[in-house]
């Protein structure tokens, strides 16, 4: 049947794809989306552990709700930052944001 390992593998894959996206996407919004992907991967992890390790105590699920909330707040702040970046740099290509370059 589908066991814990499958869920964990799924979550790992999703997480790695998310990291890959954060590190390589040029579009700032794309990076935010990748971060959301990482959050979701983590949520899957929490719920999977909750279901399979402690089926009666719904700790994981509760924590996943928290994560969604935090993700939403964080997305808000991130989008605000992207907006400001767009105003200052006339675009949202993160490759151009290198003022701190030597």
């Amino acid at each position, binding site marked *: 049947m589908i066991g814990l390992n499958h869920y964990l593998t799924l979550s790992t894959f999703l997480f790695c794809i998310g*990291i890959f996206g*954060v*590190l*390589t996407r040029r579009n700032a919004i794309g*990076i935010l989306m990748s971060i959301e992907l990482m959050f979701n991967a983590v949520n899957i992890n929490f719920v999977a552990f909750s279901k399979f390790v402690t089926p009666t105590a719904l700790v994981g699920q509760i924590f996943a709700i928290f994560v969604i909330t935090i993700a939403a707040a964080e997305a808000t702040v991130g989008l605000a930052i992207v907006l400001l970046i767009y105003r200052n740099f006339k675009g949202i290509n*993160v*490759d151009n*944001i*290198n*003022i*701190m*370059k*030597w």
Partner: protein
Amino acid sequence: MLSNAWIIPLLPLLAFVTIIFFTRRHERLSSLVSIGAICFSWVLSLVVIISVLKNPVTSEFEFTWLNLIGLQVRMGILIDSLTAIMLFVVCTVSSLVHIYSVGYMTGDPRFSRFFSFLSLFSFSMLGLVLANNFLGIFVFWELVGLTSYLLIGFWFEKKTASDAGKKAFITTRTGDLGFIIGILIITTAAGTFNFREIFHAVEAGHIPIGLLTLGAIFLFAGAVGKSAQFPLHVWLPDAMEGPTPVSALIHAATMVAAGVYLVARTMTIYLAAENAALVVASIGCITAFLAASIGLVQNDIKRVLAYSTISQLGYMIMVLGLGGYTAGTFHLYTHAFFKALLFLGAGSVIHAMHTNDIWEMGGLYPKMKVTAVTFIIASLSIAGIFPLSGFWSKDEILTVAGHFHNPIFLIVGILVAGMTAFYMFRLCFVTFFGPPRDQHKFDHAHESPKVMTVPLMILAFLSIFAGWVGIPWLKHGYSSFVYHHEPHHAEPNFILMIVSTLVALTGIYLAYAMYYKKSISPEKLKEKFAFPYKVLYNKYYFDELYHAIIINPVMKLSDFLFGKVDVGVVDWLVNGTGRFTVLLSDAKQWFDSRIVDGTVNGIASVTGRAGSGLRRIQTGQLQNYAFVVFFGLVIIILLKLS
């Protein structure tokens, strides 16, 4: 009480120290300190004489000066009749010279220093006669030589004076070389420095005769130097460059007597080593004749007196070599007084006439009565005219010379007596009588102040009467006081007395005929005996001889050593070291700038370049930073897992 006799030399030493350190600026005070010290020592010397007269034993007081393993040196004083006489002579003449110098040296810029030197000399001479061992006597011997040098060259701005000082010191030093060798031979053979112990050893026959003779001859070399005997007599005439009180004290009465004293003190050695004694007598005899002959023709008043001193010292040395201990020391005693008087009188004349040349003098008798009379008294004494001191002491000498198996000493002695009378009265007649030869100088001449004439009078008294203690008919005369082994009574030899008196009178008459009456012409004699005159006038060319065989080669050697060794080698080394140091510093400089600075700059540039390289990590792009973080995390996890 006698154990405190060391105070006698101590007082002048204290005077020296006081003047040098404290009273140098105060002339009167310095002279008073000096005079006070020596006069007090004179009183103490009288105490010593009375003590030794009452109790005629030899006293010795010692202390251990150096105590090492294998060597113990004791220093001390020895007091016997000889010491007592010497102390008296030195203190008397020294005191009178001190007082005289107050008048003679007035106005001299170094007045105080003169008195300090006189005190230092008195200390040295008194220490010399008190010494009880060879080491002690040698120390004071050298001290006396030093003070002599200082005093001869007192007016050192004058080149002749400083040269004379050097000549005196070097010549006596040459004699001292022999002296040291002699001391070493004798003391090594006897095993001790102490006089009495050495004499016991000699008398007991512990010392092999050959060694003793050799040692005695070398010891005598010291006396030859110090007492200006042939061939080291050349320094004494030059020493007349010093102030006249110095000539009177040192080069007439005391320092030059040190050599005579030495031979007398070590008489035991010479009595045991007959050949050495013969050498001594011969040298004395040669010297007496040589110097008297030179004195016949000299024109400088002090030079005549200098040669006279050398001649009289020759007498003393000769008679000591013949065993005449009593006679030799007696003549030392009488000679000190009349010779000092002659020099001080000459000083008085020089002070008045501002010249030493007798041919610029003449007719001084009426102007300087005291000086003239005392000078003539001294001349009579030295010529050996009855009944002055010189007659008795000279007679003793001739008597002893007559006892010797070879008549040569007696003959030479009599000849020298005649020559002495002649040149002394030549001096008297030319200086004090006849027409004045330099009217200008004559007009300015005047008798010297009392402080100078009173010592003259005292010395004249002594020149007449001091010798009376040696009159042969006395029951307890000089010969019962100062003797070797046994007191003896001098037998009067009437024939000798008459002969010597006749010879002296002949000399005086000859001088009178040549220089007063002018019945014999000195100029004609000079022409007739031109060659002997030339030789005598040039002092037998001794100075020229020494100059040629010793001084010139030494100077040439010094120049050579200076040129080749000093300049060539030593300077080359020194400059070479300098050049090498410069080379070394150049190398170091290269090292400093290239390597050290290079390293420092290199490190800086490496850092700079590393920085330039490394800063490229800062791309400013967040994604790169995030990548690095993630990558690091992966590494950690991998490491943790393995």
